[in-house]
């Protein structure tokens, strides 16, 4: 493995995780600027509970809680979960998601370096499947900081946005969901674009995505992540979208799919988790392509509007096969 992350060296892990956290700052700030305190409350809840569950797991496994917490990997997992969740969601959802991520996805498989599945996406997928109603309540217009911190806290601890009637009217589906809905009702793409808001019609999530892209490019520059996975994910997704444009009558917006939802977060921060990704460079290219293709397929044909979590988890399942395929390809080129 030629990534900078050496999981047997805790200080190296901590350094990498710190860089990843730094790279997430621009995206987090933009997200907060658009949707207010709810984002920070989600992050605080997820990080606090992830640390608690990590310490608990270490205790149950008769290891020192302090060493596990010192490598920041639980913090990165928690922040990724929080950034996938809608702001002002009931408090127990980020807590449960962190619990699933730490207890089930990470420590049941043997802790850092041994997890088959991306812990953040396991946690997020579990709450997405269990509480689809709560996770589909997104603020439609950027509220900025107009909702005060105290009000936000009140909402989070009293049932989320629907607890406050005047905000409930402001909620709606995400841009991806709106596009899917209108496309299913056979609206034309221009009609859909008139209905959706934001620079590309991605309900302002294009700005957070651009900030994630900037953070991701900085990580590439610092050589914390390799280029293979992000490039492969984005190129495959773009190719699938263009293919769809050419051969399908169902309207679909390429910019919304590329810069909406969690696309950039997935390409640079989620699928690049070195433990649950393929090992070799060629393997990572295949892994990224599988992820990108699945994102497209599930978004267009699946039962959930955004598909990043399911795409990453399914690609994780394919990793052992990809690694074998890679060995087989090496042998056949040597022979």
């Amino acid at each position, binding site marked *: 493995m030629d990534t900078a992350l050496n999981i047997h060296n805790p200080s190296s892990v901590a350094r990498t995780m710190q860089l990843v956290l730094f790279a997430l700052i621009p995206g987090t700030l933009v997200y907060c600027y658009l949707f207010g305190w709810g984002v920070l409350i989600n992050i605080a809840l997820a990080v606090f509970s992830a640390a608690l569950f990590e310490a608990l797991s270490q205790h149950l496994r008769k290891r020192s809680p302090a060493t596990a917490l010192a490598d920041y990997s639980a913090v990165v997992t928690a922040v990724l979960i929080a950034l996938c969740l809608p702001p002002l969601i009931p408090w127990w959802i980020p807590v449960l998601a962190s619990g699933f991520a730490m207890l*089930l996805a990470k420590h*049941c498989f043997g802790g850092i370096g041994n997890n088959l599945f991306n812990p953040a996406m396991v946690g997020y*997928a*579990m709450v997405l*499947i*269990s*509480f*689809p109603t709560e996770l589909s309540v997104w603020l439609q217009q950027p509220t900025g900081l107009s909702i005060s911190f105290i009000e936000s806290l009140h909402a989070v601890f009293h049932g989320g946005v629907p607890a406050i009637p005047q905000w409930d009217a402001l909620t709606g589906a995400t841009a991806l969901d709106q596009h899917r809905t209108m496309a299913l009702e056979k609206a034309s793409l221009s009609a859909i674009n008139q209905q959706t808001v934001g620079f590309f019609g991605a309900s302002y999530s294009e700005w957070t995505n651009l900030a994630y892209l900037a953070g991701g490019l900085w990580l590439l520059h610092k050589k914390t992540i390799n280029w293979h996975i992000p490039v492969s994910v984005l190129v495959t997704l773009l190719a699938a979208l263009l293919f769809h444009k050419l051969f399908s009558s169902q309207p679909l917006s390429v910019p919304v799919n590329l810069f909406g939802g969690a696309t950039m977060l997935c390409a640079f921060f989620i699928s690049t988790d070195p433990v649950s990704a393929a090992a070799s460079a060629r393997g990572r290219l295949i892994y990224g392509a599988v992820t990108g293709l699945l994102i497209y397929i599930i978004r267009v044909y699946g039962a959930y509007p955004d598909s990043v979590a399911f795409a990453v988890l399914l690609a994780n399942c394919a990793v052992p096969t990809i690694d074998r395929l890679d060995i087989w390809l090496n042998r056949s080129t040597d022979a």
Partner: protein
Amino acid sequence: MEETGNTIAAASTDAATSIKTSTVKPNPWKTLLLNGLWHNNPATVQLLGLCPLLAVSNSAINGLGLGIATAVTVLLSNVFVSATKSYLLPEIRIPVYVIIISGIVTLVGLLMNAYAHDIYLRLGIFIPLIITNCAILARAESFASRNPVIDSAIDGLATGAGFAAVLIVLGAVRELIGHGTVMADLHLLLGTDPIPPLINLGENFKGLLVAILPPGAFVLFGLLLALKNLCSSDQR
């Protein structure tokens, strides 16, 4: 199949050594029952028949329905195989087992279709698929074809009950976490008037929907296995 045979062989030698080391010879029937239910449970130890187990256990009543059907099948197949073992020529024994097991499963399916129609419809394809449950063929080959009828019957009963117990427990846990009830719709199996569930956390219970969906089956069965292994290692 070969692997299955090995596990069974290993398990039975385990049982044999434990019998030897104990000073008082335990009741052989009790050993058979304990093996089927716990030490050599088809689902949690041999990991056989997991496809129907995971697919059907989304409620306790579904688990109970398939559990009873499987238990009756393995009991009858063990008895039938054991009673006719002198005719079982080595070359054709596997086809004979298949005839016997598929006949019994079809018979159980017809009876369920007639007397528990709603459960039969809910279990759907998993009733005929009982035929493919390796645990049944494994008991016929490794036990019933070499032991007396009574012992085979007890072994079949224990294996069936062991499998049914796992189905019911997993079904009850998934139903409780996902729906907040345990044993809802029991009347579908008994053909009586509606019976209230054993446990009901009420209409406002907000369950983890994932528990009754397929991913929940894998996660909860994994946790159930962990619990079983924890208990077994404590006993040792």
